């Protein structure tokens, strides 16, 4: 496929591509991965500590402590986004800060801040779920599909 495309290009285009490659800065993929691994791991460790906090001081079991823990992590990431700290963390760690549930809070608040100038209703209200909306939609829909499949299997007599 790539060769086919290359054949269609003129010699000047190919020459320019080679020249472009020479000056292109290389992405430090391994370094980025390591950074993401450690920052993501750190966020998850904090989450684990919060989970233990809920287990130790409140009436939450290991199974039920997940909900308040993710809510707390999202709340803190929202605060940090508002203060402008999470953006710097995002620049440093990339996917390490976006993939954990804290990235969800970041995506909501950063969209709200970005569209603040367009007004509260059409700007903030209309765009606050611009990024997180798809996550919520797919989450709810896939949960619905899984529940439907499980119900059908259980109704048919279970596994």
């Amino acid at each position: 496929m790539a060769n086919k495309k290359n054949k269609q290009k003129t010699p000047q285009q190919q020459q320019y591509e080679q020249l472009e490659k020479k000056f292109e800065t290389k992405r430090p993929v391994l370094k980025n991965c390591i950074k993401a691994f450690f920052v993501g791991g750190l966020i998850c460790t904090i989450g684990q500590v919060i989970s233990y906090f809920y287990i130790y001081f409140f009436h939450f079991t290991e199974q039920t402590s997940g909900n308040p823990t993710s809510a707390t992590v999202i709340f803190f990431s929202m605060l940090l986004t508002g203060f402008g700290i999470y953006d710097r963390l995002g620049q440093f760690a990339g996917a390490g800060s976006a993939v954990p549930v804290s990235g969800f809070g970041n995506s909501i608040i950063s969209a709200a801040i970005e569209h603040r100038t367009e007004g509260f209703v059409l700007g903030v209200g209309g765009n606050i779920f611009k990024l997180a909306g798809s996550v919520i939609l797919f989450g709810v829909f896939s949960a619905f599909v899984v529940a439907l499949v499980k119900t059908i299997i259980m109704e048919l007599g279970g596994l």
Partner: protein
Amino acid sequence: MKSKQKIVYFLFILSFLLAGCEKDYSSVSRWALLKTVDPKPIAIGDKENGADQQAVEEIKKETSETDGIYDVAVVKGAKDIIVAYKVEHMHRFKMKSIEKELKDKLKKNFPDEQFTVSSDFKIFLETVRLYDRIEHNQYSEKEANKRVKQIIALKKELT
């Protein structure tokens, strides 16, 4: 320099505030989530013949011998016996099969008893706290039995 001083003051005040949250638990349950505490098995209201005590000790021995299990807490109430345990880190992938194996083993060896088996940290913590309070005579037999029922209800909670 001033911000550093502020942080030191903040930590100093925070340590006092957090110290206020400390409850009067003995050292056994205080560290139950972090390290192996291995509490003695207890049969509530068994002061006359000691048969129940012997049974719970046997239950604890059986449980500890199961592959992947360490740190077992056993408390026998009026009707139910709570068996709470921790699972070794790499064995946590097959937690369900370990629970099933243990349940089958206990049912086979002690057919007359009713068991509540759990690997949940919260159930373990509460069982050790109950053990602590019984040991320090903070609970009457009635209160201890009530607490056993509460722990079993907590185990059944899903949300």
